[in-house]
């Protein structure tokens, strides 16, 4: 990242913190409703040094990683099948849309009931939420592969597999990675929702603990900041991959 870009990001962060502080002052809310940024950052530092956040963060990261991998993997396969088979699209699309239209919050308790409070349920919820954007992006990407390139592949006697790996996937990559950008942030949402539906560890659990039995609102905010940071880091990771694979075209 260039120096001006770093400066602008830093300036935006400072502006956000100042705005937050201004809202605290103007609203007059007590710290147990809206703590000032300094209190939250201080609580984040103490929670981090005390080792309060790490086990929850690790649990959430594992759920996100597995959920994203499974959801994105299935999304890629389904998206390709949807793009290349009219029959699959006719049969599967209505269910996909219905599944996407049903709020994950409403489905999460059911999944927790079926899969229990362990890792499997969170991974399923994450996968479900990641699946749709990746599947749709893959479908759109594969469908928009230049027919001329496919004809080129055929003229060079490329096998079905070679066409997939050397033409279709690279050509559809910008679209697929766009879907993954959305999917990776949704994976974090899925993990938190899954933890709320029943879990022993995770940043969602920490939020519930901070809000409930601990009544430690700055800790709750610290957990929220951590979740936001996880989302930003994962998003940036996908952007980096995208720049590396697609940027130079």
């Amino acid at each position, binding site marked *: 990242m260039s120096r001006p870009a770093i400066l602008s990001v830093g300036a935006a962060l400072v502006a956000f913190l100042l705005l937050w502080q201004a809202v605290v002052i103007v609203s007059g809310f007590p710290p147990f409703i809206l703590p000032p940024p300094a209190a939250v950052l201080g609580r984040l530092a103490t929670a981090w040094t005390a080792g309060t956040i790490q086990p929850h963060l690790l649990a959430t990261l594992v759920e996100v990683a597995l959920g994203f991998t499974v959801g994105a993997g299935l999304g890629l396969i389904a998206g390709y099948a949807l793009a290349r088979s009219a029959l699959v699209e006719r049969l599967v699309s209505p269910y996909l849309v219905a599944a996407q239209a049903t709020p994950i919050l409403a489905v999460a308790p059911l999944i927790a009931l079926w899969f229990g409070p362990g890792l499997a349920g969170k991974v399923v919820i994450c996968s479900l939420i990641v699946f749709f954007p990746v599947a749709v992006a893959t479908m759109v990407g594969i469908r928009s592969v*230049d027919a*001329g*390139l496919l*004809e*080129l*592949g*055929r*003229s*060079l*006697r*490329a*096998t079905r597999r*070679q066409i997939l790996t*050397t*033409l279709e996937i*690279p*050509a559809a*990559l910008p679209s697929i990675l766009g879907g993954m950008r959305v999917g990776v942030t949704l994976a974090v949402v899925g993990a938190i929702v899954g933890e709320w539906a029943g879990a022993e560890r995770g940043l969602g659990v920490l939020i519930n603990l901070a809000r409930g039995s601990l009544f430690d609102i700055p800790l709750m905010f610290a957990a929220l900041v951590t979740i936001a940071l996880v989302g930003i880091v994962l998003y940036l990771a996908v952007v980096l991959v995208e720049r590396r*694979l*697609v940027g*130079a*075209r």
Partner: protein
Amino acid sequence: MTRVGGAIRVDGVDLSFPVRGGGRLPVLDGMTLEIAGGGIVALIGPNGCGKSTLLRVIAGLLAPERGTVDLDTTPIVEPDPRIGLVFQEPRLLPWRSAADNITYPLELAGWPPARRSKRLTELVDLVSLDPGVTGNRPAELSGGTRQRVALARALALEPEVLLLDEPFSALDALSRERFDLELLRLWERAASTILLVTHSIAEAILVADRIVVMSPRPGRVIADIPVELTRPRSIDDLDAAVVSETAREVRRHLGEGEAAA
């Protein structure tokens, strides 16, 4: 370098395409054409007469409804490694460097990297590509360089037949003349049979041994005109009297074909 193979025989090829709302649009009608191995034939005709379709049939990309295409004695029913195809637009893979685009057919054919690299050097020399740009992506190349890369890619597997579908049509007139001459030089070195689809009568005369004129759709051969120019050829040859005569004959057949349609 003399090559014995690379003779093409198109015999009574019919082809039609389905149209929206039912029915079929005839594109080729009893198309018959013979090209001797190592020859250069230019295919000329009005827009939509089926020139590019014929090229795709010869390349094995389209199956005719009737008739046959043979390369030497082998029927062409699918893409064949002995046939190289250059499209009107370069069709380079934008995520690959020029070098990786050139060696793409070799990669598909399973050539090991060392052998690909050696062949790349030969091809870069063959098409007079600036070695300094082989690491560039297509977006960083000029239109002419991109078409040069496409040409090198088509020649990668040393095809006996090179099918060229208006490959220089997007270039300006001067570049086009230069590329036509380079094509001739390339032909002398690679000795492939060349079938060139073009809209330019001057280009056809400069490059080809014969000019085959096609009728408006459905395409069939309405004239097969020999070009009486000696080789090697140069741009100055276009000023020869025989060129005007040949051009006049090509125009006359094109005009008759359109009038009949």
